[in-house]
């Protein structure tokens, strides 16, 4: 049971389940993959890359899985003791989980991007929308 002040829009951008003509099936939240993650206080030596997506970005998370930054895979070339916080790109671009998948694909194409992080309205990581992982 959820009790959310703010209506349907606030509900969907938090990634909560929906029904109706669009429902969940066409929302990007159904197509995300889970990127490798690292905590803000970790070092490069702590980062473990997902072998299934070795070229994808690493999400840097704070408390309650709030997305704070991103590391490109090249960061793993740095010495192991390098603080993640120093090498990360702060505040990467994000979209909300309720965006329709067709709109995401169109925007990625327009922006010349392969992927974009998906977060809830409160900044918690939902996953990574990656073009090569979206089959519609």
């Amino acid at each position, binding site marked *: 049971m959820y009790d959310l002040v703010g209506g349907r829009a606030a509900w969907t951008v938090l990634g909560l389940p929906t029904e109706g003509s669009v429902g969940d099936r066409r929302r990007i939240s159904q197509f995300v993959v889970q990127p490798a993650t690292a905590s803000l206080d970790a070092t490069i030596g702590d980062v473990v890359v997902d072998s299934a997506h070795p070229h994808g970005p690493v999400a840097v998370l704070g408390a309650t899985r709030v997305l704070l930054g991103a590391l*490109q895979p090249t960061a793993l070339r740095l010495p192991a003791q390098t603080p993640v916080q120093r090498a990360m790109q702060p505040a990467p671009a994000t979209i909300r989980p309720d965006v329709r998948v067709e709109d995401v694909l169109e925007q990625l194409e327009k922006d010349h991007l392969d992927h974009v992080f998906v977060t809830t309205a409160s900044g918690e990581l939902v996953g990574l929308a990656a073009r090569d992982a979206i089959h519609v």
Partner: protein
Amino acid sequence: MTEAGVRLGWWLSSEEHDPRDLVRHARAAEDAGFTTALISDHLRPWVPSQANAAHVWTVLGAIAHVTDAMEVGTGVTAMMHRTSPIVLAHAAATAAVMFEGRFFLGVGTGERLNEQAFGERWPRAGERRDRLAEGVALIRRLCSGENVNHRGAWAVENLRLATLPAAPPRIFVAASGKRSAALAGEIGDGMIGVAPDGSIVDVFRSTSSADTPVVGQLHVSLAADLETARESAWTWWPNAVVPPSLLGELARPEEFEAVADAIGPAGIDKAVLCATGAAPVIAAIDRFVGAGFDTVHLHQVGPDQARLAAMATGELFPHYAHRA
């Protein structure tokens, strides 16, 4: 450096140094342990106080002669009014022969500063990107030994270059925005960037393979104390405070000087890393690598080039060699 490590490069600033010094600096960089370098290609300095802008291809010939292992590229050459794809392909092919595989060609959409002397119209960025794409395609054909006929922004009539390297030089494309990054991914063998901006690398990666090189430029002013470092940065590289949107548009060194003077030196250490030790330099390199760059070229502003060489040998290379 291991194959998967961080690579540090040396920036040879044609705007600041006498061409004979550039040749000496290249040799010193190789002796210090650098395996890659970029040399800027300017017709005029950014500001009058820099007082240099040697013909880069002449200097490259001398650098090829005095170095043995370091690869060198242009950072970067434009094809607008000053240089045509024919002239550039001819120069690049010869440089590639002279360097015996150690040369790469860096290209970009150029700056009005280096083109206005020809008295021609300065095209907008989109047109310059189109010309760059056309020029790169022509250079690839010419450097591979093809007999080329072409009509477009440039004409090439029945030309086959006679002096050719064993393999055509790699072509790196400069990018400071998302449109040029997308173009770099489409037509380049690598990208040259000027800021640790992961969003630009993301765009480049969307049209390039995962292992295509991404190289960056980091301006540093290293000195015995911070005040001297700031003074040197302002004396030799005041153009660093000029907004990026103006870099391609101003026509004369005096205009860059006037804009820099109007802005003032207060922000110079935000545009040029002023430091006395290696720690802030390492932190800045780490930001480039975290943003997706595999090579970072260090540009020590001013005449004290030996200070960077000593820091690299004593601290930077050992730091990045120890990854485990």
